[in-house]
């Protein structure tokens, strides 16, 4: 059975929405971080779907770039998170508000 392309797109949209809403409503830094990953991979899924639907390899190659950037982002982001938790283990995102004007 061939799954229609629109389903994939719908799935990606749902994943992106979950990620975006999660990022906005959750206070746990680690969870927010996972939400970002979720959004990134939702976009990846969209790219791959369109690559298949339109028969264009460009979409798939873009995904590689996204994965590379995401990997780099994970390194930096986790580094920040680890250093935050080193100071206090129960920190939420709202506790880190040094940039308040």
């Amino acid at each position, binding site marked *: 059975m061939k799954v229609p392309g629109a389903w994939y797109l719908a799935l990606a949209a749902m994943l992106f929405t979950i990620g975006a809403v999660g990022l*906005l409503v959750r206070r746990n830094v680690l969870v*927010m971080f996972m939400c970002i990953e979720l959004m990134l991979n939702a976009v990846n899924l969209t790219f791959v779907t369109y690559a298949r639907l339109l028969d264009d390899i460009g979409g798939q190659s873009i995904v590689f770039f996204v994965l590379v950037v995401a990997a780099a982002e994970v390194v930096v982001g986790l580094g920040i998170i680890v250093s935050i938790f080193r100071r206090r283990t129960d920190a939420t995102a709202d506790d*880190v508000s040094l940039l*308040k*004007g």
Partner: protein
Amino acid sequence: MVEAVWLIPALPLAGFLILLAFGRRLGDPGAGYVATAMMGAAFLVTLVVFAGLVGEHHDHRSVTQHLFSWIPSGGLDVEAGLLVDPLSVTMALFVTGVGALIHLYSIGYMHGDERYHQFFVYLNLFAFSMLVLVLADNFLLTFLGWEGVGACSYLLISFWFERPTAAVAGKKAFITNRVGDFGFMLAMFLIFATFGTLQYTEVFGATDRLAEGTATAIALLLFLGAVGKSAQLPLYVWLPDAMEGPTPVSALIHAATMVTAGVFLMVRVNPILDLAPDALTLIAVVGAATALFAATAACAQNDIKKVLAYSTVSQLGYMFLAVGSGAYAAAIFHMVTHAFFKALLFLGAGSVIHGMHDEQDMKRMGGLRKWMPITSITFIVGWLAIAGVPPFAGFWSKDDILINAWEKSPALWAIGLGTALLTAYYMSRQVFLVFYGGERWRKETTVRTPAAAKAHGDFKPHESPSLMALPLVVLAALAAVGGFLNLPFSDFLHLEHWLEPVYGDRLHHLTSGTGTKVALLVITTGAALVGIGIAFGVYMRHKVREEAVEPRVLQRAWYVDELYQGTVEAPGRALADLSASFDRTVIDGAVNGMGALVRAAGSRLRAVQTGFVRNYALGVAGGAVSVLAYVLARSA
């Protein structure tokens, strides 16, 4: 020999530069000797140039030495050059000669001053400026010297700037001079617009195509400059105050050289004046009015130098009276004799002040001729010269001017005669108060200056050192015989003939008969003797109380300073206050208001920066959604 002329200004300039670099190391009195040597050398060079010029044929006594191209800029092309002619050499002779004597005197007078070398730095720079002024071959270079002497006079008048009065006097001199300088500048613009050049020879060669209106405008504007520099009504106010400077400065700048620059300029531009008879009349009237006005003020001054200051203003008035009467030779003649006897009188006054430990009030002097023989004898020679007693220098030059004034207008002559009487009176008053009468300094109770306080007790006036006495003796000799430069009845050393290339046939030639001349001569002499007689009656025989002949209005010089304070200073101050408050409220208000606006906007906008990551994320999401909505709306 004439080619050496560039050395004349170059030597004082060299002295200035040497003293600027090594003056502190040369110190007291080394710096003074270096400066004096430079001036002496400049005088010798001037003598050489003078000899060279005499050697030339009478018609070829005008040599231009090109130095360098100063401002080559298309239409305006100014060459820096020196013009050697009888007028400039005569000026250079007495500027360097009298200047060297005053430099020599200063070595002794300034001894012990803590800024000794600096004084000679200024003095040499001043001499350089004055020589550039008289030797320049174009208006702009003359103006350079003109401004130079103005700046140096500021520096020298306020040399003792620790004294507030000296600092104020320096500013007053500078600002008053600036008023006249505007006239000079406007005249130069007009000359350049008319002739397209500023070189003297080119301008004077083209005067035949000058309209009378333009000539009058140029003459009056130049005269305005001369009025400022030569301290005539109404811009004379700076000169009496300039006596705050050290006494050699008063002698050099305010008697012998700087103030004569205005007269020199008028004589230099005589081809233009010749085309503007109305301007000439105005010059004569201003000169006569200044002469009388300043003479009346001099009659009631108690400061020994203030008397001489007003006297200088008055004598300069005589010179302008001569210029206005077309008697250029008489003006230069009186300038030269005046340089001799006024420098002598100032240096003598300086010697008295020195000997009296910085006392300047004549009412606290008296009987000094026993204590200061050289000073008193030379001063008396100067007195006889300025009072117009024959055969001293002032008699001949003043008489020359008065005869010319008589032919211009008997009214001007009468004013000149009245001034001659007053001159004899106030100078006799000074001599009697200082050198004759009781020794009033003995019963001195109130002590003004710290130096006088220190000397109080066993105080005795003393004669000045020989270094200061020598210039006095030389100047006294010159003041005694200076009149023979231009005797009216002979051709011996005739200044008028020597200066002829400068004014050609534009000189006013006397038309009066010998009888009139002799009568005028006798009347002038009589006036001088009457003046001396009155002073003798008042200050020696005490026929009248001294206070009765020294009314307050004369002591305050007719309240002109107060008038200027009311009419010029007060509105100027009000304007300054107004612009200051405009600056504070409007300008500062705009600048500070802008700052306050930014600050207020910032404090409102900073609320956006909450520091919560989710808020930023919401912003990003909202932004992305609105961009997307916009794109979709456009493409739909």
